């Protein structure tokens, strides 16, 4: 194959063409990064487990406390595909039983925070460039009010200081112009407006609101949607219709033979099946060549409930099999209405 010089127009055209017309990538699918400070100035890469390590191509990133609960949320603007991403910080979120990855008991007291807004009087009202310092336990944390930073981004003009377990801190401001003003001691949970020259913080009201959890990733329906007759496959791949309405509850559980969590719930599901008019219908999402293995596994385990296999029609309407975490169970009413979604193994 003849090769062209790197700087040549033909070479450029070839590579432009590959990206713009043929859909190639360059430094693509690089996940966004979260580096968490361990408190000593050393950063630990926790991108993999942060929940916001989107492989799309991020550009702007904005920090703001969108639900005014005291922890900082994040907005990211991507170049293509899912363009706008809003991430809710789960640090101060009450433990809930239904979040997808947002569940879990903490059992510890929540870390404290101080929220600061600024207003200049001697200088410009925006007070851009003002530095706020919060001193507690011998440490001083500094933040600057930036109107524009990062790349084509502006975070909300509100500074949030974490206090960890410390109950309070001392606030001071270096205003544009260089005047340093002390605003005294503020308690954890304070939301304060600092007005230049006033010397004392002015509390501002909280606008905190509760938020529901997002539905599980990969599930194409939500609570209240109805499933009636659905096409499913048997072990040979032959499709037929399966009626999900019945006289009682139907527990529709999605599983795979390779999944440790799915194997863990089998006995529990088997006990639930037939109890109080309830039936269990398992939908195995294994690749076709593994269907026999999955069927044999159920037989070995002595499972009595119905098992079917995932066909194309269910993928169209109910699950995105690449994104749905297994196991996931839909609890359906007699008429097929989705009444509850169980994330993870049942019976915990």
């Amino acid at each position, binding site marked *: 194959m003849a090769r062209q010089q790197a700087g040549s127009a033909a070479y450029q055209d070839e590579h432009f063409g590959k990206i713009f017309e043929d859909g*190639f990538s360059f430094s693509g699918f690089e996940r966004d990064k979260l580096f968490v400070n361990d408190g000593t100035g050393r950063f630990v890469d*926790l991108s993999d487990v*942060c929940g916001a390590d989107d492989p799309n191509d991020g550009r*702007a990133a904005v920090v703001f406390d969108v639900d005014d609960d005291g922890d*900082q949320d994040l907005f990211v603007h991507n170049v293509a595909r899912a363009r706008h991403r809003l991430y809710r910080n789960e640090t101060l979120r009450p433990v809930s039983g239904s979040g997808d990855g947002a*569940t879990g008991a903490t059992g510890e007291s929540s870390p404290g925070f101080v929220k600061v807004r600024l207003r200049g009087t001697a200088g410009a009202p925006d007070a851009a460039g003002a530095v706020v310092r919060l001193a507690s336990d011998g440490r001083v944390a500094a933040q600057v009010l930036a109107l*524009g930073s990062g790349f084509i981004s502006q975070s909300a003009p509100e500074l949030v200081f974490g206090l960890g377990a410390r109950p309070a801190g001392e606030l001071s401001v270096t205003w544009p112009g260089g005047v340093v003003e002390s605003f005294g001691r503020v308690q954890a949970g304070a939301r304060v407006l600092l007005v230049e020259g006033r010397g004392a913080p002015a509390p501002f009201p909280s606008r905190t609101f509760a938020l529901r959890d997002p539905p599980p990733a990969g599930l194409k329906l939500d609570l209240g949607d109805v499933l009636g007759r659905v096409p499913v496959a048997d072990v040979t791949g032959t499709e037929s219709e399966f009626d999900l309405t019945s006289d009682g509850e139907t527990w529709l559980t999605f599983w795979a033979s390779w999944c440790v969590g799915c194997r863990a719930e089998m006995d529990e599901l088997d006990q639930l099946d037939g109890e109080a008019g309830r039936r269990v219908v398992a939908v195995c999402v294994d690749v076709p060549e593994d269907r026999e293995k999955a069927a044999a596994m159920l037989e070995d385990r002595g499972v009595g409930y119905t098992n079917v296999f995932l066909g194309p029609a269910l993928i169209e309407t109910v699950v995105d099999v690449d994104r749905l*975490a297994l196991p996931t169970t839909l609890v359906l009413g007699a008429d097929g209405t989705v009444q509850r979604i169980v994330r993870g193994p049942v019976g915990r």
Partner: protein
Amino acid sequence: MEVRPGLIERIVLNRPMPVTLGLALALALALGLAFGLAACGGDDAAPLPLVIEIDAPAEPLTQMDLVEDLSEDVANRLVELAAVVRRHAWEEARGWLTDDFAGHALASAVEGASEPMPTGARRISADPGSAAIAGPADWLASFGELLSIYGVVDDVSFKVKGAEFARGVTPTGKVKLKVSIFGRGSDRGPLSHVIWGHVGVTRAGGAWRLSRFGLDSLVRTERDRVLLADVTGLAGLEHVTGIFGKGGEADFDWNGAASHDVDGDGLWDLFVPSSKRSFLYRNRGDGGFDEVSAAWGLGDEHGGTGCVFFDADADGDPDLVVGHVGWVLPDGSFGGQPMRLYRNDGDRFTDVTEASGLSGRHVAFSLAAADFDGNGATDLYVCSYNREGRISPESWFDAGNGTPNALYLNQGDGTFVEAGAERGVADARWGYAAAAADIDEDGDLDLYLANDYGDNALFVNDGQGFFTDRAAELGVLDTGNGMGTAFGDVDTDGRLDLYVANMSSTAGNRILDRLLRERAADGGGDAEPPAGGSGGDDAPGPVQIGSTLKKLAAGNSIFRSLPGGGFERVPSEMGGIGAAWAWSSVFLDIDLDGAQDVFVANGFISGESVADT
């Protein structure tokens, strides 16, 4: 040869840089390589080796571009394997292994103790020396076992981090491989594996196959729940468009965002410009947002690049400036779009660009607002890039042919006069981002500027709004393709430190590693990256081209402010810089422990295919 690096040169970072730097590398080659069919040897019953040994080729290929082509070839073949693995299609995966394959079985490596991480995350490292050696079927089964603790695998990636290939008719090679697995456990907690290994590869039957896998490290990271939950859909912010390059989606460096309280209700709203349109999301206070750009007078069909809210007319509410790409044609007429200033009228915005004097043509990206001249009114600094794709930077790291940045001084009444050149900040090195702070604590606001194709600038204010670039003496030149910047206190000492996001790429690093190794072997150049330090990064001379190249691909930078003034580069062991093609970088305290964390938006262009060009 005239060298005109442009977009495409950054896309093929590896190839033009040596040319740009005048290194004696033969890049334009017409090579014929006979790919013979490798003999298929062995079968499943072949005895397994006692150790996994993958010898480096005795007679390696040395033509760098050919090595890189083969590396990409292997990388792209492994992209397909990743998809197969994700589906747990292990029979299909056999096609990626030779019949006499042998390797360390992943799940057999004995895990050590759980190491506590910040935020309660846990990291568990396995001992690579404890892994059993398996043939092809067992090796894949062990891979499956490793994945069985996942409830969902969101992504598997195989990245070629280095490669050497043998000369000869049967292409074989030794590849340094990073395998990353991301997903959630059955209990829905986030879970990942990062695996480093060396693989022997051989090309047989027209496709690359693995013949050996030697495990170097295997680390599992997990947490009970995510730190950040994606609530885009619930909040009503979902906006999905096509693949980059399709349907006119080609605004690869646009897509800004700014947050302020536009309606004075105490909740943060969001303005989101892009090339096709802009969005104004009003925070309803119940978890949802309403998109009100049209009703609020921001339905400009030309969208925008970056944006910033500030109180231009000092009436107590935030006004909005939206950046655009505009230019002056050779005949003096204007092309493209000007920036726009929108006055906040309480329930809508009104375009006051013309009356405000903010109507210059710039290739505007990041905007930074602050009162630079100390007259009590907020001014605006505009990072003006150039029309990439139409104009090529004249150098990779010393280009001066961007359009000059602008400084609009607020006259106190919401009208502006442009004074960038007069004030010493009309930098033309393809500026992408800037941030303002008083770095010398003398009471006025200084300005750090991240340049894409030039050293960065630290404009120090003389107190009257006249600036001198002191980046070199203060140690923050940060040679490299600067993309974003922010000030924050990384060591909680009460002083502002500096974060700079840069561009780096896997392919670029792979090439540079090889290049520097070769140069070191030749006794030419220094193979070590620059130490940085308060003396600053020296301008590249012939001896330092190697280190400059390395710096260009090294990633992001953190500079710690020193008690006596100036900055020093934080050593890479302190972490926080290992992003790739990085853009916006923001400080936040994700876990409210009092120490500033960093989030970095990352990645250049993800096409329809995962394969790189």
